[in-house]
């Protein structure tokens, strides 16, 4: 594995320009002052209640995601490349979804094999021929980006279902501004605080035709025990919309209403943070207590907009991911600005053979997994783990893809023994409304706090950082 690119001290240890002020400030700031502010930040997070739940861990039902006070900094120039690439990618994702559920040109052009779509459990036949307002399927996308050198950003994963983490982007900034006003004064950091406004206007712009002039938007959560519940309540609050659960909604004559103290009130747009499977027990899982019976029929009647649309999983599926460069070219006729990680599709015998031969070098992921669960990181795994994985892979090759272990870039991070480089990724949030795609400058930087670790997921011991885009 190549030596990782450090975003502060580039190759050869030369200080990169975006970090010039930070480096100066770090030299002036005594280490215990940093430690003190770190503790203060933790206290603030606790009091605000920014917690997440770890599934399968009864001891710590609510946990804090560790927050690293050293910001990650990017120049305006770096950001502008990323921004263009992200917009391009999300436009292609939306066009792909529209096509898959309608004309299927891309299948007829033999770019993606049919069975990868039709035999995919996240493909939703219910969406065939169903039109959605303004042809927007993915209103909110979280695209996971890693960096391998000064010039190349690579897409690790597209999240087109219910991506989370944006509350951390916003709260991290709030806390940094409170704790480090002096550091802010020395930089021109592009603000992220418009995100809630942009999100609300994107959601309102896709209201169904039958909605009133002032459409009613609500955020649907699985409830207080969901791991991202804090984010749901945070966003509903910032947007000034009701935070509803399935039991607050009722469908009558194919219209959706919420139960209020003044009787039933019509809802036009639902920003849902509930997975497809649980949306409507009449259509999907009959045992779902989180959903609303009849919601899908109101959806089919065109009386409610769901954001993101039902069936978007087919676009961020890890098997489809490997085709994204071709997808971008096919719909937009442009070269993709953001690269993909080279991916071996284990469903293809040639690729499988290669993967089986090189397991100790590769990262193998479940096609339908998320959150860092159920993956194999070859270089870090024991022999026994690798062998166990090999069996799994042979039994069900179509369930997996493999990628080389990337040398993710590093950023300076507070550790028990002072500042040290740690691997990071970035999840910017891309919003699509009726006629525009927007991104606030920044995103959620996740950092693997363990030395050498490449897993940034919060469920696996990752932390977060504030992400600064310098406005030059």
């Amino acid at each position: 594995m190549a030596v990782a690119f450090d975003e502060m001290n580039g190759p050869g240890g030369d200080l990169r320009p975006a970090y010039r002020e930070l480096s100066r400030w770090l030299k002036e700031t005594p280490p215990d002052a940093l430690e003190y502010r770190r503790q203060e930040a933790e206290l603030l997070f606790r009091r605000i209640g920014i917690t997440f739940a770890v599934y399968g861990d009864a001891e710590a039902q609510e946990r804090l995601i560790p927050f690293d006070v050293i910001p990650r900094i990017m120049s305006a120039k770096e950001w502008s490349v990323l921004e263009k690439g992200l917009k391009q990618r999300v436009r292609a994702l939306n066009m792909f979804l529209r096509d898959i559920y309608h004309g299927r040109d891309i299948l007829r052009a033999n770019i993606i094999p049919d069975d990868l779509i039709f035999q995919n459990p996240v493909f939703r036949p219910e969406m065939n021929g169903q039109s959605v307002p303004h042809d927007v399927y993915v209103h909110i996308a979280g695209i996971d980006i890693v960096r391998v050198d000064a010039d190349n950003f690579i897409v690790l994963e597209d999240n087109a279902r219910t991506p989370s983490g944006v509350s951390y982007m916003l709260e991290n900034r709030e806390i940094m501004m409170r704790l480090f006003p002096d550091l802010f004064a020395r930089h021109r950091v592009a603000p992220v605080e418009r995100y809630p406004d942009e999100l609300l206007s994107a959601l309102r712009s896709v209201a169904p035709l039958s909605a009133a002039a002032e459409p009613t938007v609500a955020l649907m959560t699985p409830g207080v025990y969901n791991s991202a519940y804090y984010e749901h309540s945070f966003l509903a609050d910032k947007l000034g919309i009701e935070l509803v659960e399935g039991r607050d909604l009722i469908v009558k004559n194919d219209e959706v209403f919420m139960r209020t103290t003044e009787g039933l009130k019509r809802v036009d747009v639902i920003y849902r943070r509930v997975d497809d499977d649980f949306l409507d027990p009449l259509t999907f899982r009959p045992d779902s207590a989180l959903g609303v019976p009849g919601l899908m029929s109101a959806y089919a009647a065109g009386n409610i907009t769901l954001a993101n649309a039902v069936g978007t999983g087919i676009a961020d599926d890890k098997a489809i991911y490997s085709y994204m460069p071709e997808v971008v070219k096919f719909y937009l006729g442009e070269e993709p600005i953001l690269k993909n990680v080279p991916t071996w599709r284990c469903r293809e015998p040639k690729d499988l053979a290669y993967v089986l031969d090189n397991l100790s070098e590769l990262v193998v992921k479940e096609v339908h997994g998320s959150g860092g669960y159920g993956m194999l990181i070859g270089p870090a795994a024991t022999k026994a783990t690798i062998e166990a994985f090999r069996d799994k892979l042979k039994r069900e090759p179509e369930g997996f893809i493999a990628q080389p272990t990337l040398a993710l870039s590093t950023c300076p991070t507070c550790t028990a023994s002072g500042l040290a480089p740690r691997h990071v990724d970035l999840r910017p949030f891309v919003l699509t409304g009726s006629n525009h795609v927007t991104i606030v400058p920044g995103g959620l930087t996740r950092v693997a706090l363990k030395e050498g670790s490449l897993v940034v997921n919060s469920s696996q011991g990752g932390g977060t950082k504030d992400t600064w885009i310098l406005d030059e």
Partner: protein
Amino acid sequence: MLSRTAENLYWLARYVERAEYIARTIDATLRVTALPAAYIGKTNEWESALLTAGVSASFYEAYPEATEQNVVEYLAFSPSNPSSIKNCIEAARLNSRSVRTALTSEMWDTINSAWIELQEVWGKGTSSREELARFLRFVQETSLRFDGSAYRTMLRNDAYWFSRLGLHLERADNTARILDVKYHVLLPEEEHVGGPLDYYQWTSILRSVSALTAYHWVYRETLKPWLIADLLILNDTLPRSLASCYSNLVRNLDQIGVAYGRQGAAQRHARGVRNRLEHSHMDDIFQHGVHEFIQEFIADNARLGEIITKQYLI
């Protein structure tokens, strides 16, 4: 607003108020039991603390006898007592989490900090009277902070009114329960009226509704049982009196009615109870039986809770 949000706000306020009330009950009982037996007689004050908290029956399923240690444990920390202070604060936090969008950050901070302190400082209960006193102060201060931050930071809209409905309904219930358990020491025909025994019982009652000083300001007299009853039942100026709770309930329900442009059974029922309190005199109440009066009030109050739930919360 969402019915579920209103319901959560209503219960949040009830749980916080209940936690404070239980804390006050323990506090008052500690004081009275610290007195030499000659002053308080042979009654088991811990037993009556259980009764005023309304958990006597379930207590005896878990403990053989009502000793200080058992009762404090059960009322303050027991996970199996749904009304224990610990459970009240936990339920309050759970309700707060469900309605964060309807709370101001100050209110959330109060409940969340209390919940954190409950785990970190009071996770193992208390091991001395001194610690217990600190714990009880913590609970009362939490309630004061919560109440104060609601009062000072919430918009005056239905969210505020539903939260106040919960507070006053719970408060009325609590005051009525004390009266229900202790009414016999307030009866004027008791033989030993004015003896030291009653005196400490009376101060204990007043203390548990934080009305000891108020009594002296209102009546400028030594403690008289019928005046204590008058203060707790009919005096509109005492925030924990039944009359005051109902003035507030009627007002908050009217505000909701005006905002929604519709009155209903809840408004009518609350007004009925308020009117009865307004037109009663202590003499009549004593003549017809304090016990019956209080029992009827408790039933009426519970009925109002049911009507509010049906009209707005489901």
